[in-house]
């Protein structure tokens, strides 16, 4: 992994001086010159064939690994990323000879191949010693290219001289003004204060200023009034919300997997982490390190692990039949490409299949980056039918209220345990256990026998008739009620009963032969509950005692209608027998303990059959069991202990038996049931999870995929940063930390430039490099290269502080210019690349909504937490694959939270955001388009969410009873766009209000239809008329524009 630091292209100026020296023949050592004269080596005859045969495949016309080609003289002398290939006359110092003779397999050329023969090496040595003569015309005449500007380290430029130094408020202004000077232009005047404050507020926190804030700013005539506002906004927690949004686009943050099923995933703690990091002004280098390698930092904190969610935000396809490894590879490819775009401003994905055509990145570079991310587990798991998203997750500490609730439940559990102990003590008092053991022993000693019980009475709550047959079965007939409860009283006839049997019998008189009464085709019954009570013969007056039943078994139970459902106390569960119709069936139930009832006792059974459709039993018979109970009344393990004489039982056996005995006590059983519920409740307080990166123990071997196909593995590669950029100076760690540190190493020429350029674009609408995603040779060149470098070096020098750069930008006079222009100015410089005016462009999707909510007086400033679900049209979330999620529209605060918290489902993002150019977040986006469409107009006019806002704004306006209607219009106008309206503007809106007011006074019902029922004391027609004004204000170009 370790790369020997070699001189790089980035010190090209220094090298060129050396180059002049080594090319000077006088510099050759005399001895070598002498040797060279002895036997002349001919380049074309002796050397060119060696180079062609052994080197040109990678360093020739088709490929230029390390930007080196060995077929063109000028390039051999200039060298590639490792410096000049040879030093004329000095073979020992020539890289070419060093590399073909190296004893290090990783360094020796050609790689993975036989070394050059001794004879070939000797020829090369002698040729170089002879001054490496290379006749003109041998090989192509290609000159080395100048290194692309973006791969040279930014140099801190001196501030340029300008014609009007008084305009220079921050160093940025000097660079801007210099260019304006040379274009013969003057900057625009400072923006009006109200407009400026709105611009600043939208840029720094994404929320417009309140009217009070505007007034305060207008009234503040201190020289540093503006700077004070900048300070206030930079310190606002809403700053992080504003600036996290573009980062989340880049990080392709979403709350679902994407693809076929697009299930919800829990990773929002990462989103909150980003917001917090920005609020804390976490240095961008640390911000980078934690997201790419937080899990690998020594004593990594929970926060640092959450940060690694960045890499886990890739989409994941869990459709049936997917290849999990292919999915994993696609995710890593996405990680490499995203890293390339976000930090290096480089399109790495070209190099996935072949060496980059335009930029100096090879396919090997690509898979070396791939290797950093390759040590990850599969994220799809499947059994051939169902596939699921898996992969590393982390539990977060519980929230305070959850923690409190959990502690309360645990305390309750402790208390119940004490109660249970007392119940057990009571249960064990005296010789209770001894007597129980004797009763069990005697029951077990008797052979099990079934005794049919004599029917004393039968009643049907539904009014069915019945006959008692000779075999003591009851045959039900007559009307077939929809639902029925049978009450059957029987004489027991025996004592020591350990169970009951319910037989459901066939009979020719029943539909389809029975045993149920439902229909000829389906003679089913559904027995919802079966209960038994005992009535003592000697105490006729005493109330019946319930008999606890357990261990239900049946010869057959219908799927999902298990016989156990008939005695679980839950009428929703039941026993039924579809499709085993036309056959008799039987269910047996055990008593908890042998019944001590006498021969004259009676039992009352109720058979609750409430399923409906006449699914009742047609013929039934009841029997009692005496003798040895079935095994699950006395569990096998307990029976085994009982067979051991008391004195020979081990302590463990004795305990086990005692636990079984105490568990039979109703009081203990009741406490046990409560404890089981408590356990469920305690377990249900689960911590929030979030997706994180985790390295696998076992290291995966990485290889180049031929043509980008993961099934075609080529040469193995190791983790390594791209060869064309400076190597990492520090001791490498061989993992993602190394990559992260390399990205933010101050020698990396790209990262700081790419970052400041993105921020600049966030404020001015366009980067200094217009293609903010591509700093390569195909990208735009910077409009102000020195400004870009000044900002990049400033960022590094100021400990990577984002807030520092933002402060510099918004403090500049360049930023504070008025954005007004003449049509000619807009035509001359449509992109405002000269900055002869201030920035003016439509707000991003989320800000369009946040701004409107704020204007309407609704916006919630709550931070953090799970995604929210503001109103959206029905049917936007649809069934996809096996996933049919419900969109449960939020109420209250969550309905009006900032857009960053809105649930982001990749297959169906929030539609009003989509209409304002939000991406689907399935892949990295650093540059949202900015369109202007009729769908945007429809959204602002008709979306339920915006209609709600307009109604709210109408209520706010109507509520200002202290103002005249014209004053209210001025106030509402200022809420929307901060500045004061002109008289003409007021007149337009006042006319609207007056006209609509008089219309609605004609038909108040129409007003209520539009704005709904208003609270008492509120004039509905007035609200409806103000609704028009509000809807207009929320739709103004100026309202959705930062200007």
């Amino acid at each position, binding site marked *: 992994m370790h790369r020997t630091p070699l001189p790089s292209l980035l010190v090209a100026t220094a090298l060129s001086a050396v180059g002049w020296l080594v090319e000077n023949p006088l510099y050759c050592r005399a001895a070598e010159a002498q040797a060279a004269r002895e036997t002349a080596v001919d380049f074309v005859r002796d050397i060119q064939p060696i180079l062609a045969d052994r080197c040109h495949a990678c360093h020739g016309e088709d490929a230029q690994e390390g930007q080196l080609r060995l077929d063109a003289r000028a390039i051999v002398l200039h060298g590639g990323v490792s410096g000049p290939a040879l030093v004329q006359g000095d073979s020992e110092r020539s890289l070419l000879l060093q590399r073909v003779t190296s004893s290090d397999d990783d360094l020796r050329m050609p790689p993975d191949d036989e070394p050059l023969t001794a004879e070939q090496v000797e020829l090369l040595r002698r040729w170089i010693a002879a001054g490496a003569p290379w006749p003109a015309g041998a090989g192509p005449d290609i000159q080395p290219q100048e290194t692309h500007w973006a791969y040279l380290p930014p140099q801190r430029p001196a501030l340029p001289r300008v014609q009007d130094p008084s305009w220079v408020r921050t160093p940025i202004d000097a660079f801007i003004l210099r260019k304006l000077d040379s274009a013969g232009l003057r900057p625009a005047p400072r923006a009006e204060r109200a407009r400026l404050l709105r611009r600043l507020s939208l840029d720094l926190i994404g929320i417009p200023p309140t009217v009070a804030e505007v007034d305060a700013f207008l009234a503040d005539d201190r020289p540093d009034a503006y700077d004070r506002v900048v300070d206030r906004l930079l310190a606002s927690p809403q700053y992080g919300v504003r600036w996290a949004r573009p980062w989340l686009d880049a990080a392709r943050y979403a709350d679902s997997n994407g*693809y076929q099923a697009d299930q919800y995933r829990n990773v929002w703690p990462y989103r909150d982490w980003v917001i917090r990091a920005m609020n804390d002004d976490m240095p961008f280098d640390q911000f980078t390190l934690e997201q790419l390698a937080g899990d690998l930092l020594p004593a990594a904190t929970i926060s640092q692990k959450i940060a690694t969610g960045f890499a886990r935000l890739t989409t994941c396809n869990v459709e049936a039949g997917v290849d999990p490894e292919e999915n994993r590879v696609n995710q890593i490819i996405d990680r490499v490409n995203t890293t390339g775009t976000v930090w290096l401003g480089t399109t790495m994905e070209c190099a996935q299949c072949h060496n980059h055509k335009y930029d100096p990145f090879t396919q090997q570079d690509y898979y070396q980056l791939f290797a950093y991310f390759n040590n990850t587990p599969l994220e799809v798991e499947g059994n051939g039918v169902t596939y699921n998203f898996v992969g590393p997750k982390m539990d977060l500490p519980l929230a305070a209220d959850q923690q409190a609730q959990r502690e309360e439940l645990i305390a309750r559990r402790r208390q119940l345990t004490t109660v249970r102990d007392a119940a057990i003590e009571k249960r064990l008092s005296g010789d209770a256990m001894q007597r129980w053991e004797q009763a069990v022993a005697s029951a077990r000693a008797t052979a099990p026998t079934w005794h049919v019980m004599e029917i004393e009475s039968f009643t049907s709550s539904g009014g069915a008739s019945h006959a008692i047959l000779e075999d003591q079965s009851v045959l039900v007939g007559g009307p077939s009620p929809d639902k029925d409860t049978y009450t059957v009283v029987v004489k027991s006839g025996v004592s020591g009963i350990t169970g009951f049997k319910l037989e459901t019998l066939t009979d020719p008189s029943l539909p389809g032969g029975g045993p149920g009464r439902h229909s000829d085709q389906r003679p089913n019954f559904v027995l919802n509950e079966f209960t038994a009570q005992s009535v003592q013969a000697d105490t006729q007056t005493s109330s019946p005692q319930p008999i606890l039943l357990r261990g239900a078994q049946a010869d057959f139970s219908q799927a999902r209608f298990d016989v156990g459902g008939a005695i679980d106390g839950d009428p929703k569960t039941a026993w039924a027998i579809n499709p085993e119709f036309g056959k008799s069936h039987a269910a047996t139930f055990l008593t908890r303990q042998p019944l001590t009832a006498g021969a004259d006792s009676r039992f009352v059974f109720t058979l609750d059959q409430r399923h409906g459709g006449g699914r009742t039993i047609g013929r039934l018979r009841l029997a009692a069991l005496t003798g040895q109970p079935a095994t699950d009344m006395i569990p096998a393990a307990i029976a085994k202990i009982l067979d051991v004489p008391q004195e020979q039982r081990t302590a463990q056996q004795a305990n086990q038996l005692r636990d079984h005995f105490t568990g039979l006590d109703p009081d203990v059983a009741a406490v046990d049931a409560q404890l089981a519920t408590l356990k469920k409740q305690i377990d249900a307080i689960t911590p929030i999870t979030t997706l994180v990166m985790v390295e696998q123990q076992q290291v995966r071997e990485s290889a180049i995929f031929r043509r980008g196909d993961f099934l075609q593995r080529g040469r193995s590669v190791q983790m390594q940063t791209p060869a064309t950029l400076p190597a990492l100076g520090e001791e490498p760690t061989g993992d993602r930390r190394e990559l992260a540190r390399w990205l933010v190493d101050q020698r990396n020429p790209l990262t700081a430039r790419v970052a400041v350029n993105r921020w600049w674009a966030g404020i001015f609408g366009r980067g200094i490099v217009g293609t903010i995603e591509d700093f390569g040779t195909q990208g735009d060149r910077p409009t102000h290269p020195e400004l870009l470098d000044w900002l990049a070096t400033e960022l590094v020098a100021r400990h990577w502080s984002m807030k520092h750069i933002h402060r510099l930008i918004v403090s500049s006079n360049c930023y504070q210019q008025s954005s*007004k*222009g003449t049509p000619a100015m807009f035509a001359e410089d449509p992109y405002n690349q000269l900055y002869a005016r201030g920035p003016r462009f439509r707000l991003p999707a989320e800000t369009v909504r946040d701004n409107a909510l704020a204007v309407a007086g609704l916006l919630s400033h709550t931070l953090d937490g799970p995604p929210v679900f503001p109103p959206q049209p029905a049917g936007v979330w649809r069934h996809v694959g096996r996933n049919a999620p419900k969109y449960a529209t939020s109420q209250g605060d969550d309905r009006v939270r900032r857009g960053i918290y809105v649930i982001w489902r990749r297959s169906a993002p929030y539609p009003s955001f989509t209409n304002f150019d939000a991406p689907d977040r399935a892949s990295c986006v650093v540059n949202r388009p900015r369109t*202007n*469409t009729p769908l945007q107009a429809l959204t602002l006019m008709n979306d339920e969410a915006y209609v709600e806002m307009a109604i709210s704004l109408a209520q706010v306006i109507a509520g200002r009873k202290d103002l005249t209607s014209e004053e209210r219009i001025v106030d509402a106008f200022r809420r929307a766009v901060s500045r004061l309206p002109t008289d003409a503007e007021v007149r337009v809106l006042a006319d609207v209000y007056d006209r609509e007011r008089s219309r609605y006074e004609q038909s108040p019902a129409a007003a209520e*239809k539009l704005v709904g029922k208003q609270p008492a004391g509120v004039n509905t027609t007035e609200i409806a008329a103000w609704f028009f004004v509000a809807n207009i204000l929320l739709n103004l170009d100026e309202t959705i524009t930062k200007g």
Partner: protein
Amino acid sequence: MTPYEEAAQALSRRELFQNVSAGIGSIALASLLGAEGGAAPLASQPTSLAVRSPHFAPRAKNVIFLHMVGAPSQLDLFEAKPALIKNDGQLCPDEYLEGQRFAFLRGHPKLLGTEFKFTQHGQSGLEFSELLPNLATHADDICLIKTLHTDHFNHAPAQLFFQTGFGRFGRPTLGAWTTYGLGSENQDLPGFVVMITGQVAGAGNSLWGSGFLPTVFQGIEFRSQGDPVLFLSNPSGLEVPGRKRIVDAINQLNGTQLADVGDPEIATRISQYEMAYRMQASVPELMDISQEPARVHAMYGTQPGQVNFANNCLLARRLVERGTRFVQLFDQGWDHHGSVFSSLRNKCKQVDQPTAALLSDLKERGLLDETLVVWGSEFGRTPLLQSDRAKAGRDHHKDAYCVWMAGGGVKGGATIGATDELGYFPVEDAVHVNDFHATLLHLLGLDHRRLTYKFQGRQYRLTDVGGEVVQKAIG
């Protein structure tokens, strides 16, 4: 003249078509200035739906693309394979299986022949199974490609590949590329319209997304429930005249602002509000099929008020008639891993009649010559049996499957390519999805190598680095 008109007039016509950075909607401004909608040349990277001239004379103006989501079995509809029927139940010869990956099949699969009868139709003698009796009457209009092959065998990636030429998210769809290249003729309707029957396909909205192209080129879904276009209807209680008064006031205030600030973006905004207002009338008019004559309803099998494929076919015709450039229908329910014979019969009952009716209807109206109709799916199905014979199904098959095209300059009655005796691999004229896309663009007068968009430093195109026009398919 209002202030914004004055401001707008100050802008020269040239820059309207050049200032196409994110956001300057040139058509709108063009119409504001009363400019005739004469086709502008395909500018470097347009950002509006204004009509643009293609690279060369087109054969087709509009496209109706019928995507059967899930993948119908070509072996039971278009490809009669006697050898497959004869060897039904036999183990698949090993040489076919080497290096093959399947979504579901495991072990050594058996062959599965069709149960359906195939007959030849028309002058061309094109073969159809008995499941497509209506479509078969168009045998001489259809160009059948038998050897289409794709790179992916899972639905979502293959759907993306079929619509964007790339198996992952992030690229523009064919419809987006088309409207990017040509614009659209009716500015009161979207240029790229999507309609869906059944569940939305696995890859979701990305199947009509614009990828890295400006979002004006993304497909607009006409929904079958609620507003056909999201947010089209006024809030309840707001009538059309009220909306008109609001739009007028918005535009009046925007006009004042345009005069003050000078930003042409405001002029665009003004015209977009006008267009939005017009769409509120034109879209419901379009969606109301109840006024079509009974004969048309009988032909398509349409049922006004219902959601079905037939209604969408009729709407597709109404859209191209009104100048919408690209209409995409998705119909879900073709993923027959089990009971392929009975399921396919049911699905064909739903689509055969309306699809044939669409071709007939376009023909009668003289629209078929300029409308390219495409019928196909993300992949095909295996000649191999999945599940047991009683519930015979077929797995996903990416190596050879069938799509057809009709109208729009396509050579009617032609068959492109041939597969081996099992219908497993192409043996003649294999057509890759890139080739297919190149051909569709070619028919629209667009050179797939020149229809590019520069993004992240690279000139991207629908066909990536591949694509050869299938000349044999062109009439």
